C-alpha cells in the first residue's frame, strides 16, 4: 500500500541518457569521410558536371539498338558467358565435393582438415578477375581462361559451403555404417552424402547464378563472354548498342536467377531443413560476384 502512494511522486520522466559520447563515435567517421574524399580528385566542376554527363549518356542510350548488336553476334556472346559459368560451376562442384569431406571437422582428422580449409580461404581471397589476369597469359585470351578462373574461384566458396553443411549433419547414420563394419568411405557415401546432397546441389545452383554475373564481367578483360562486347561498344561511344547489350545481359541474368531459384526451392522443400537464416547473409551478398 505504501508503494502505491509512492507512485505518483515517482512517475517523473527519467532523465535522458547522456549522449555526449556519441561525438567520439562520430569523429572518426568525419575524419574517414574527409580523408577518403580527398583521394578522389573531386573538383567542384566535376561534381556539378557529373549528373549532366550521366544524363546525356542515358538519353543517348534510348532507344537501344537491338538489331545492330544482334547482327554483331551479341546473343552468342551472352550464351558464351552462360557456358563459361556452367562449366566453371561444374569444375568447382566436382573439385570441391571430395575436398569438403576432408575439411569438415566431424568427419576428417585435424592434420588434413586445416590445410584444406586454408586452401579454401586463400582461393576465396582472390577475385575471379585477378585469377583471370594471371591465367590469360598461361591459356591465352578466350573463354577457357574465364572458365578456369571461375572454376578455381568456385572451389573456394563451394568447398566452404559444402563443408559447413557436412558439419551440420545428424551423425547417427555414420555410426550405423560403422556398426555394420563399413569403412570411412562407406560412411561418407551412405551416411553423409544422402543427407547433404540436397543442400549442396542447391548451393551449386546458387553459385551458378553468381558465376553468370562473374563471367559477364570477365569478358571485360578478354576472358570470353559478353563483357568484351559492352567494352567495345562503350569505347566506340555507340551508346544505343551498349544499352542493348546491357539490357540483354540483364534479361539473361534475371531469367537464370528466377529459374534457378525455383529449382532450388524445389530441391530444398521436403529435404533436410537448412539453416537458411545464417546463410542468407553471406549467400545474398555473394550475388555481387566479388567474394563469398
Amino acid at each position, binding site marked *: 500500500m505504501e508503494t502505491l502512494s509512492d507512485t505518483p511522486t515517482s512517475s517523473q520522466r527519467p532523465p535522458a541518457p547522456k549522449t555526449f559520447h556519441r561525438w567520439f563515435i562520430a569523429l572518426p*567517421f568525419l575524419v*574517414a*569521410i574527409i*580523408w*577518403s*574524399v*580527398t*583521394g*578522389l*580528385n*573531386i573538383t567542384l566542376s*566535376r561534381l556539378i*558536371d*557529373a549528373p549532366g*554527363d*550521366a544524363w546525356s*549518356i542515358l538519353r543517348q542510350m534510348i532507344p537501344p539498338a537491338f538489331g545492330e548488336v544482334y547482327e554483331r553476334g551479341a546473343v552468342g556472346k551472352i550464351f*558464351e558467358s552462360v*557456358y563459361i559459368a*556452367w*562449366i566453371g560451376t*561444374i569444375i568447382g562442384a566436382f573439385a570441391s565435393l571430395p575436398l569438403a569431406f576432408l575439411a569438415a571437422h566431424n568427419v576428417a582428422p585435424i592434420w588434413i582438415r586445416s590445410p584444406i580449409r586454408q586452401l579454401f580461404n586463400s582461393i576465396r*581471397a582472390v*577475385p575471379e*578477375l*585477378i585469377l583471370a*589476369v*594471371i591465367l590469360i*597469359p*598461361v*591459356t591465352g585470351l*578466350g*573463354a*577457357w581462361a574465364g*572458365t*578456369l578462373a571461375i572454376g578455381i574461384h568456385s572451389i573456394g566458396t563451394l568447398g566452404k559451403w559444402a563443408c559447413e553443411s557436412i558439419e551440420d549433419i545428424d551423425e547417427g547414420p555414420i555410426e550405423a555404417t560403422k556398426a555394420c563394419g563399413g569403412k570411412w568411405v562407406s560412411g561418407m557415401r551412405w551416411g553423409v552424402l544422402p543427407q547433404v546432397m540436397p543442400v549442396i546441389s542447391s548451393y551449386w545452383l546458387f553459385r551458378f547464378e553468381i558465376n553468370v554475373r*562473374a563471367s*559477364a*564481367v570477365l569478358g*571485360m578483360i578478354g576472358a570470353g563472354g559478353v*563483357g568484351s562486347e*559492352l*567494352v567495345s561498344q*562503350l*569505347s566506340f561511344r555507340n551508346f544505343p548498342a*551498349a544499352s542493348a547489350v*546491357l539490357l540483354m*545481359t*540483364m534479361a539473361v*541474368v*534475371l531469367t537464370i536467377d528466377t529459374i534457378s531459384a525455383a529449382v532450388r526451392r524445389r530441391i530444398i522443400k521436403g529435404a533436410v531443413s537448412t539453416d537458411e537464416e545464417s546463410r*542468407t*547473409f553471406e549467400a*545474398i*551478398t555473394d*550475388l*555481387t*560476384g*566479388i*567474394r563469398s
Partner: protein
Amino acid sequence: MNDSTDTSERPVKPKPRARSFLIALVLLGLTFWAAFKVSFDLSTFWEVWSNPIWSKFWPIPWDWVLKKENTFDPLIETLQIAVASTLLGCLLALPVSFAMSSLTTPNKIVYFISKTVMNLVRAVPDLFWAKLLVTAIGIGAFAGAWSLSIFSLAVMVKLFSETVDAADPRPLEAARSSGARHLPAVKTGVLPTVFPSYVAYSLYIFELNIRASVVLGLVGAGGVGRVIETQRQFFRFDRILGLLIIIFGIVWVIEQISVSLRKRLV
C-alpha cells in the same frame, strides 16, 4: 518368427522416372556442348609447367614493387574509394531499406518502385557499372567511387530490408498507437532493434568494396587495379605477382579487423 525371416528381403529399388532420365540427358548434352564452346582442355594443367610463360612470373622485383608510387599510393586510392563508397552507399541504404520493407514502408507505391529499381540495379554486375560511369563521367577514382556506391547501395538494401522485415513489429505498433507519425514511429520503434545489424552489414559491405575496388582499375576506374592493368599490357607478370602479394596481404589484414568487429556486434 519364421514369417519374419521370409519377408525380410531387400525392398525393390524404385525405378527412376522417364522424365528424370530426359532431364539428365538434356543437362548432360548441354554440358558437353558448353564444354566444347569454352574449349574445355585439361591439358592446360600439365602443359603449364613446361609453358615458358612461368619464367615471366619469377623472380619478383621487390625493389620495384615496394616503391611508394608503384604500390602504396594506388593502394591508398583504392582504400579511399572503398571507404567513400561504403559511407555513401550505406547512408543512402538506410532510408531506402525502410521504404523497401513491408513493415516500415510508407505506402505501396514507394515499396513497389524501390524494390523494382533496386532489383534492376543489382542485375547489372558491378564492373559494368564502373565501365558505364567511366565512359559517362571520365576515367579515374571518381567514377569508381560512384559505381561502387551504387552497387553497395543495391546490395545493402537487399540485406538490410530483409532484416527490417524480420524485426519485432510490437514496438512500432506501440509507437503508432500512442499517436506517432510514420517517421518518428519507425525511428523509435524499429531503428534501435535493427541498428546493430545495420552496422554489421555496413562492415560487410566495406569488405566487399575493398575487394571490388582492387579490380576497378582494370576498367579504368582508379585504384591499384590501374597499375595491374598497365603492367599486364607490358607483360610484366613478375611485377603483378609482387603487387598481388602486397595487396592481398593488406586486404586480408583489414578484413580480419572488420570480421572481428562484426563478430562482436552480432
